[in-house]
């Protein structure tokens, strides 16, 4: 790869500029919601807006101190997406269709928690390569996180999936969201250490090179656990996400098309099996293909949600009804699973395209960090993280627009829900760290050829214990 030697520039001022613009967009969205609703502007606008602005600026300062060379675009994009999402949730709150009409307040609280934890992550980790030491701890953590909701009395069933845990009375949390981070760390650590073995050892059948079973053992275990638990928990979206993550990371590590072939055939086999045996999967696919069938539309758990979302999108048209003027609250779960439909209705195709582009920019910057990273662990981790965001967007937006069956995944940064917000902000912090480490100038003094002499590992092999060559 030809690399351009540029003198590294920190580009934090550019970030500040874009951040201010992102904040103006978020506040603008909030303002429009207020203006267009009957109540007009209230105190919340000022306090919540200042809260978001303050936090983002603190994050910016943290980057100036600890990750000076980080990508200047990632933070503004994340803040803009988060802000637009907040405005939308606030807007659905104002419609007062559910008894719980302070979701925006809770969401902004979670945003604060998530951003603070992301900053702490930045400060505590500093160099992403440290995470490599926790390869197997990450695997254990993933298993624990995925099993948590299955513990009786601790896990709760919401909307048909057993993926939440309840702490106290009001706080519910989805540990699977954090598991995608720990699983990515495990895959990256394991694959960067065993890449050669997986590549070279093993039988060749036709054009496909099959790796040895024992090289893949831990990977298969991780995959089986994540898929198995999720089938038991009946959460289709997350199992697609974990499977996709697994496939992409192994493909990035080995560059073998055979993995894509194997993965796709496993996906098809699994999909057909699930469709035939699991009722909730059958329902989803029926609701996708025959969405406009009155029988399916009216059935419980039928296609009402997705069809209402499509009506909303159609109502929005090209330029949208304007924030606060549409009726996105007609759709069930309009502020979480279906937030894309709500945004599409009120911002129109033009606005929704801009949002999709923001996601695309975020993903491409993550991939850029992976390309620039100097170590294979960082490369794999950044690629895995940006792919998770990409796959989530695809599954959610594809589901809402009826391109693929609708599954319950969250729209990153936008959907109401603390655990998703938290994990996505941690992902942003790690992507920023990886991009910082890849763009940082090399510490001077150690040139490529002059390697520092390492102490011999075994000091007993000094002169005293040296064997006489001549007597051998």
């Amino acid at each position: 790869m030809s690399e351009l030697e540029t003198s590294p520039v920190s580009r934090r001022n550019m970030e500040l500029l874009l951040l201010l613009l992102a904040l103006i967009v978020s506040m603008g969205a909030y303002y429009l919601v207020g203006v267009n609703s009957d109540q007009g502007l209230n105190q919340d606008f000022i306090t919540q807006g200042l809260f978001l602005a303050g936090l983002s600026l603190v994050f910016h300062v943290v980057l100036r101190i600890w990750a000076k060379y980080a990508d200047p675009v990632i933070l503004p994009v994340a803040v803009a997406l988060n802000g637009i999402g907040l405005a939308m949730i606030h807007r659905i709150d104002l419609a007062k269709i559910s008894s719980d009409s302070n979701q925006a307040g809770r969401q902004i609280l979670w945003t604060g928690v998530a951003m603070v934890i992301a900053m702490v992550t930045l400060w505590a980790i500093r160099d992403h390569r440290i995470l490599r030491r926790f390869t197997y701890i990450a695997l254990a953590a993933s298993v624990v996180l995925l099993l948590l909701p299955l513990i009786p009395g601790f896990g709760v069933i919401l909307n048909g999936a057993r993926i939440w845990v309840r702490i106290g009375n009001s706080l519910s949390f989805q540990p699977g969201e954090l598991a995608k981070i720990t699983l990515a760390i495990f895959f990256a650590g394991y694959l960067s250490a065993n890449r050669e073995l997986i590549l070279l050892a093993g039988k060749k059948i036709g054009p496909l090179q099959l790796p040895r079973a024992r090289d893949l053992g831990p990977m298969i275990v991780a995959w089986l656990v994540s898929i198995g638990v999720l089938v038991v928990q009946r959460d289709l979206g997350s199992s697609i996400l974990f499977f996709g993550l697994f496939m992409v990371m192994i493909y990035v590590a080995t560059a073998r098309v055979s993995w894509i072939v194997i993965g796709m055939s496993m996906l098809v086999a699994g999909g057909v099996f699930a469709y035939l045996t699991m009722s909730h999967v059958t329902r989803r696919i029926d609701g996708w293909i025959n969405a406009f069938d009155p029988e399916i539309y009216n059935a419980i758990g039928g296609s009402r949600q997705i069809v209402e979302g499509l009506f909303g999108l159609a109502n929005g048209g090209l330029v949208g009804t304007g924030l606060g003027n549409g009726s996105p609250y007609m759709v069930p779960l309009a502020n979480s699973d279906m937030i894309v439909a709500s945004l599409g209705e009120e911002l129109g195709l033009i606005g929704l395209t801009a949002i999709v582009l923001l996601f695309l920019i975020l993903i491409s910057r993550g991939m850029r960090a992976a390309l620039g990273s100097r170590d294979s662990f960082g490369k794999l981790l950044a690629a895995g993280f940006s792919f998770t965001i990409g796959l989530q967007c695809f599954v959610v937006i594809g589901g809402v627009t009826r391109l693929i069956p609708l599954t319950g995944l969250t729209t990153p940064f936008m959907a109401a829900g603390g655990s998703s917000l938290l994990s996505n902000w941690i992902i942003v912090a790690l992507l920023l760290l990886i991009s910082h480490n890849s763009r940082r100038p090399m510490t001077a003094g150690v040139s490529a050829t002059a390697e520092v002499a390492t102490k011999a590992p075994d000091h007993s092999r000094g002169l005293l214990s040296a064997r006489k060559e001549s007597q051998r």
Partner: protein
Amino acid sequence: MNDLVFTVLRLGFLILLWLLVLSIVGALRRDLAIGRKARTGTPTAREIRKNPELTPQPEAPAKQQASTLVILEGPLAGLEHQLTASPILLGRAQEATIVLEDDYASGRHARLFPQGTRWFIEDLGSTNGTFLGENQLTRAQPVELGQKIRIGKTVMELRV
């Protein structure tokens, strides 16, 4: 407020959103410009003031070329070998450039070779190892003038 204001605000927000997208893409332009636009070479004084780690490394004083290998200790102590441009094989084997009469040296023990302006030493899989200063070699390393190389009981250094 009337409908006109609402419409203006609504479209204004879309324009604002696209302004954000386009300015982000604009900020990334530098990443795409390979060659002309990308800044290369030495950082300016202002960049150095802001980013102290960019300070150019002072040029190392012109190295004096090593010209002799002097054996300081061991059975061959006192021997001086004139260095030429060709590599030197150290060991007990007869084909070695300097045949070490050292019981603790292997047949083909180490290799001393010039690269650029410096000499490098590399262990050739010897039994007892080669030491540069206090450290055992694990790979080829540059030898500075006056740095002690130890093979078995033989100690040598490079001199001008």
